[in-house]
């Protein structure tokens, strides 16, 4: 997939990375259809968040379509259109 990667302070690049995998039975993979920029992205981009490291993928406010779900997911089905809660991940 393509991803917006943070490579350092104010150093962003759209790069090709591996596709995400279902690692946890409660995981769902969402194909992003639209994404927005949040005010807190500025803190991330400008290097104010100490837990950031080069290679981190940005973007946490988005909508999309469920592409795959784990065994433990009950409230979603493949093809559902969803809004993603930004606090996870």
């Amino acid at each position, binding site marked *: 997939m393509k*991803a917006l990667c943070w490579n*350092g302070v104010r150093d962003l690049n759209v790069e090709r990375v591996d596709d995400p*995998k279902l*690692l946890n039975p*409660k995981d769902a993979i969402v194909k992003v259809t639209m994404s927005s920029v949040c005010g807190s992205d500025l803190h991330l981009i400008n290097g104010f968040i*100490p*837990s950031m*490291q080069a*290679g981190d*993928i940005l973007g946490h406010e988005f909508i999309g379509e469920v592409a795959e779900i784990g065994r433990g997911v009950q409230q979603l089905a493949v093809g559902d259109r969803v809004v993603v809660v930004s606090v996870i991940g």
Partner: protein
Amino acid sequence: MEKKITKNVGPVEQAVSMALGAYMAYRAIRNLRYRSVPALVAGGYLMVRGGLGYCPVSRWLGKKDLGSPAINLRAVMTVNKPREEVYGYWRNLTNLPSFMAHLKEVVEIDERRSHWVIETPGIGGRIEWDAEVVKDEPNRLIGWQSVNGAAIKNAGKVEFDDAPRQGTEIRIVFSYHPPAGGLGTGVAKLFMPVFRGIIEDEIFNFKRVIEAGEIPTTKGQPAGKRTGKFKLI
């Protein structure tokens, strides 16, 4: 009306303040120029501080008296679970390490008493103490404190309320008393922001654990090139 001043400067610090203040003031007066005015003011301030044993600046920084001040961590959050369930989870203090990583383990000794172990990152040491539940109002409040002889005197309290529409609002306070007064307090204050950040993050993990049953993570998922740059923690 007479107002009593609570001393917040210890005797040694008082003497040092006095001496340094007097020296600064003396130097400033000896070659009095426009530039030496700030030094004169600072020297004067130190002398007053030394003389009275009271320092408004120290007070403003949080040192209210000569006793070692507690470090208080507070958190308020709403979790989407009924009050009974949230209370029940906290009442069993052995559950705390499930969301607070700095706690290695909490073992229940009996209904009221428990044994706590924390691992100090970096130095690889362990700190252990016994704690006792001192307040317990079912579905309302739980309070505990370390029993005598703990290296880090500490206490905690959690209050539970119904959130407006659904779920539970919880208010958490953890207090730690740094080992030694004076220097110990200074060192503790210095590391306070880091310490506070870590503990607060851990406290908020409670919401994840009680609602999702685990702490969600992106660990193991793809990322861009890990060049190792900018990695702080």
